[in-house]
């Protein structure tokens, strides 16, 4: 698989905020709550800073050296003051801790009716897949779809407005981290285990996704987009975005190879002649096969098509009838592309 990473200047999402000093848009259910706490801590910090640095500056001016005969204060401690400045900040710290803890628990508990989306991280590309829609990963174009080069396509997470979404994420190589600043969510994507994050998008728009765990050369380019759409429009858009079709300038055999990968054919059918659960595709096309009922036939276009749609009608001798049917999952042109791909495996 060729990693198609996106240079940051080509991501094409609109700026998240008007001023670089402003807070980000509050585009998810978590965002506004988190910002409130953020502002609360900021106010406490500013007050503390003014008190501490104010006292420092006041003392710096008032007690600057005036003459060699200066006498200084003999104060060495003040128990009441010291207890005061230990206890009062502690009370504020407890408030912040509890507040943050409650929010964090909410951010860690997805509701039962959340829509599931799968995210896969791989150097240096995100793959977004929707279990409830047949088809492939969703990609989008920066501008006009017709002029879009395959390498310019951006992995895109489409989410419906006001519906909870749960991401189940996994990495195939090193640790990545999936971060949507506008939603205030982030979670490491770890190889060998699944991690989750959830949110409800509450603002329509297009927002950047960053990888925030250093993952090698093109870490900075491991980007994606989130596009928030009204629910009805969302379903149609996902259907279209995940639809698999022949790309412009792509050979049918290459399209077939993509289908072979996406549909998991490789789990049973190898390309190198070795036998797995089913026959290898190497040299399959046109070969005469012995069937379980004793008859034999040549593996031509019609036989391959039938084997995809009704796999157990004619099983090659030596194999168990256990392939699932792809009836309704693959379109005619996709079956044709697969046949072309198999034909090319000489």
């Amino acid at each position, binding site marked *: 698989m060729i990693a198609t990473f996106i240079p*940051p*200047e080509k991501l094409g999402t609109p*700026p*998240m*905020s008007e001023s*670089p000093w402003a*807070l*980000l848009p509050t585009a998810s259910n*978590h965002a506004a709550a*988190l910002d409130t*706490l*953020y502002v609360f*801590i900021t106010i*406490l*910090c500013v007050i*503390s800073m003014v008190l501490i640095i104010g006292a*420092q500056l006041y*003392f*710096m001016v008032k007690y600057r*050296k005036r003459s060699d005969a*200066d006498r*200084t*204060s*003999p*104060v*060495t*401690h003040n128990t009441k*003051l*010291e207890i005061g*400045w*230990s206890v009062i*900040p502690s009370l504020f*710290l407890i408030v912040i*801790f509890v*507040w*943050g*803890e409650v*929010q*964090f*628990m909410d*951010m860690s508990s997805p509701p039962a009716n959340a829509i599931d989306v799968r995210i896969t991280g791989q150097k240096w590309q995100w793959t977004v897949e929707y279990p409830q829609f047949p088809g492939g990963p969703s990609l989008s174009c920066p501008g006009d779809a017709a002029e879009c080069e395959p390498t310019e396509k951006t992995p895109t997470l489409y989410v419906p407005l006001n519906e909870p979404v749960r991401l189940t994420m996994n990495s195939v190589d*090193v*640790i990545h981290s999936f971060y949507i*600043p506008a939603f*205030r*969510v*982030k979670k*490491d994507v*770890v*190889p*060998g*285990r699944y*991690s989750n994050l959830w949110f409800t998008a509450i603002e329509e728009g297009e927002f950047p996704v*960053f990888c*925030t*765990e*250093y993952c090698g*050369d093109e*870490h*900075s380019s491991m980007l994606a987009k989130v596009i928030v759409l009204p629910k009805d429009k969302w379903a149609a858009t996902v259907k279209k975005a995940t639809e698999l079709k022949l790309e412009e300038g792509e050979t049918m055999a290459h399209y077939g190879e993509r289908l072979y990968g996406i549909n998991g054919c490789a789990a049973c059918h190898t390309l190198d002649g070795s036998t797995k659960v089913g026959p290898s595709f190497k040299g399959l096309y046109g070969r005469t096969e012995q069937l379980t009922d004793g008859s034999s036939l040549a593996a031509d276009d019609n036989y391959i098509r039938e084997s995809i749609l009704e796999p157990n009608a004619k099983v090659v001798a030596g194999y168990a009838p256990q392939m699932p049917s792809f009836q309704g999952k693959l379109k005619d042109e996709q079956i044709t592309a697969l046949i072309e791909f198999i034909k090319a495996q000489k």
Partner: protein
Amino acid sequence: MSNPTNDSVEPSYLVAKKGLLSWLITVDHKRIGLMYLVATLFFFLVAGLLAILLRTELFTPGQDFMSAQTYNQVFTLHGAIMVFLFIIPSVPAAMGNFLLPLMLGARDVAFPKLNLLSFYIYCIAAVMLVLTLVMGSLDTGWTFYTPYSSTTGTAVIMATLGVFIAGFSSILTGLNFVVTVHKMRAPGVTWNRMPLMIWAIYATALIQVLATPILAITLLLLCIERVLSIGIFDPALGGDPVLFQHFFWFYSHPAVYIMVLPGFGIVSELITVHSRKHIFGYRAIALSSVAIAVISFLVWGHHMFVSGQSELAGVVFSFITFAVAVPTAIKVLSWVATLYGGSIRYTTPMWYAMIFLWTFTVGGLTGLYLSTLSTDVHLHDTYFVVAHFHYVMVGGTVIAFLGGLFHWFPKMFGRMYNERAGAISALLVFIGFNVTFGTQFFLGHQGMPRRYYAYLPEYEYLHQISTVGSWVLACGLFLVLFTLLAGLKFGKHAPANPWGGVSLEWHTATPPIEHNFHHIPHVESGPYDFPEIDWDSAKH
């Protein structure tokens, strides 16, 4: 305190023995301290120049003069050199070595030969880390996260072995200091009469001895995984990558305090001497150093709130992290209170101490956003974290280190530096530092991730401010270098006690004689009992 002995007829430690060999095989803690000082300052310069390269590359959103690969190697080297070869050994091994026996009234550390061995082990480690440059470089970040570090093609084994060996130097120095503090105090130097610098170094030494072996084991396991393909951290071999993070931060969080506690010690000395005041809350400051050292072992999981560790663990780590804030706040407030009723002299060391109060307070307060579970989810691994730890590490340790360097420079070399140049350097460092890293808090809450060589155009404006700030900071630091070098060559001869300090290092010749004291001093008062203090007024 005993009477100063200024009428030294013995030569100073700098000229007591002559020739390069007399330095290379010296067991004098002061000479070893100076050798450490030269080595750590050299690596500070190297890693600082790398930082300027990084900031300059970030001036525009796209790629300028560094490829992604080069950028990754440069930020890795910047972090690894700064942490392992500069900050960790800078204050304890360089200044601590020079000052600890002097401040305790001892003739040397407990194990002088072990001390020299620590230095050479450090040198071997430094050579190994630098060798990675010619062996395919290193691109893992200073944190060596697995499975990236178990799979990348760069010189990970050489680098981790380098850090592994540097750890032994750290452990041996720590061990030496713990024993020295326990056994070598001059008569009358009770625990309650030790300068706070010693308390800080002592707390640091305890962490060095207890935490560093964990890092050593972790890095050794990483090497074993790479060489023998035994699955420990790499899931492809059946390991657990998050386990590495637990191991790594179990050392590296306490290591943050190895880096910053000695800075606390320096600031306690600078503020008292230059304001002619007894420290406010001696016991609170001393014990909070020890409290921080203990609690620091229990907070490592706050680096991993979004790593996939259990939520309950996150809650516990967050709570304990808030607990560290309390002793830290006590220290800052005590330093400010020390200024009350003083007679403040605005010398260069005092300017740095004043800057420290500002920068370290910002560093400490911004830690609140990151110890809070929910806000950390947003800010984790963004520039907010970069800004926060630079405010703590540079704004805390390095600023204190620079102040200490000016403060003890006359003691070390017997020369004065130019005060005006020193004060200008402090101003440049203050402005440059705040512009560079203050801006990065805003980049962070805007979502800018760290370790990106290219970024979305919307971040360009803030990145440019930050980069310009880094150039100002660099000018300030070069001015420090020139001021000190010029002082060394052309400076006036320093009086025995230019600042009127009363702790023991000022009770011997400047620079000290080879064996520190003609007679072991007998101490009858505290290290902050300045003659200007008007003890009588307390009675009214």
